[in-house]
């Protein structure tokens, strides 16, 4: 059972404000989705190695890629920092500006 309290906890972890009506709807929706995906418990997976990005045998989607290292050398780039800082909602002197961290 997914309670509205549980939704509130998840929203807290994910840093999303949700209204009381949204909370109700989200609890119902998650309940329904989780009831459906619960069917995976019928599958026997005792000796199955999970397919994760960190699996040594195989990367996530089977491309056989291993760690994509490159040489640790300085590379020239034409990218101008200003292009990124332009996108900051608030900035000052090329720095990000944010409200106080501590309340």
């Amino acid at each position, binding site marked *: 059972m997914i309670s509205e309290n549980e939704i509130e906890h998840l929203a807290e972890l994910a840093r999303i404000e949700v209204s009381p009506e949204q909370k109700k709807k989200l609890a119902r929706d998650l309940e329904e989705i989780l009831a459906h995906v619960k069917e995976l418990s019928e599958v026997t997976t005792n000796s*199955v190695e999970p397919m994760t990005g960190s699996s040594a045998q195989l990367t996530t*989607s089977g491309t056989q890629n291993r760690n*994509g290292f490159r040489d640790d050398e300085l590379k020239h780039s034409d990218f101008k920092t200003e292009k990124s800082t332009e996108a900051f909602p608030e900035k000052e002197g090329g720095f990000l500006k944010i409200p*106080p961290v501590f309340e």
Partner: protein
Amino acid sequence: MNLDSLTISSFSKSLRKKEFSAREATDAFLRAIKDKDEKFGAYLTVFEHEAIKEAEIADEAIASGDAGALTGVPLAIKDSIVIEGARATAASKILKTYKASYDATVIKKLKGARAVFLGKTNLDEFAMGSSTENSGFQITKNPHDLERVPGGSSGGSAAAVSGGLALAALGSDTGGSIRQPAAFCGVVGLKPTYGAVSRFGLMAMASSLDQIGPITKTVEDAAILFNAIRGKDEYDATSVDAEYDENLLNPDFDGVKKLTIGIPKEYFVEGMDAEVKKEIEKAIQKLKDGGFKIKEISLPHTKYALSTYYIVMPAEVSANMARYDGIRFGVAHRKRYGGIPEVKKDAETLRDLYFKTRGEGFGEEVKRRILLGTFVLSAGYYDAYYAKAQKVRKLITEDFKKAFNPQSGGVDVILSPATPTQAFKIGEKTSDPMQMYLSDVFTVTQNLVGVPALSLPVKQYKVGGGELPIGFQLVGRHFREADILGIGKWYEQN
């Protein structure tokens, strides 16, 4: 110039024969967008000035004899793929004001080929959805029936190509987002092999599943566009240096006919619409009559793919969406932005800024998936949901390995329906997320496994012809796009 009958390949020939210029073609498409897009709602942004400039550069290239397959070709780009200096919203209010600071690798490649970008197309917010109704800005309609959805999430791209508002388009596919809208709109869509195309510059949704791919009018066009955007890229560590031979662009039909096509029985059991089933069976018969070997196969874990997907995908979504924090780009909950809706009082603390910006900026489906992903990854539930799903994902992958294994009499290509139904009505599934998710039941599997998949219409559909398109899907081995494109091209020409 008849825009509807143009394909990338016929367009290039006409350009070279000077039947029209790239500038004239671009003008014609921009006019078509002006005339018709009010009806379809395919575009979020149209590049009137830039497109004309690009077309003029293409014309200069053609005049100096330096033209390639995509020179001057007017394309539409899904709005989750970035173009330097252009607005890129991913149809989310949280990025309402965002302008991209760089080109995606696929864009860089297409610019190098001197393609023309007509504009950015609508999608379900951050590519989360199956109908393009989840856009933060507008609803796109299916050109074949304006009361129906174009599918999603690349619904704007599919509608633009189908409605004659672009010669071809780019979309992205995490669980069917290229193939399902292509099927609904009667056009061709290719999800390449995981790793075949760089995702640098594609706003990430679920990184172990996302791929960029073409949406086109013909299979031949899909091959041309795929060939132009594929390749290893130092900015996407998952991209692979795969080898493709000339069969990718020019399939040899005698060779293609030696391929065996498997029909997985698990795809023909429940939930499929009778009309869709009938048409898919006709398509299989046509291939049989054409001399292809057809064989029934089994992919026993098929039934569990959708559930696996709806655990793995939201888990990755919840991580990827963390970057939209109101600090680095897009809209923040601060007065000077106007906010969403208008902000009366600035967020006073950092915590407040996160909660308010994300609470207002994200739509309902995005929130649902972030919370679902947060849930399946949280302590106490991780093993039962996420770890379990990754194990079942492994079993699903093993099914494909076995089916494709030549040592045990395996097949070369797998054929299945692309969607369980034809395009549904606008509003029909918006209140029940599980119903909406079920429309991806045939397409999520290929993303979990990473194999390439091509969706193509069972026959040619004309906008205004009064028919609702039906598509089928050809699935190949990893990096064997040539096989599915080869069969697809044979099917289309016969």
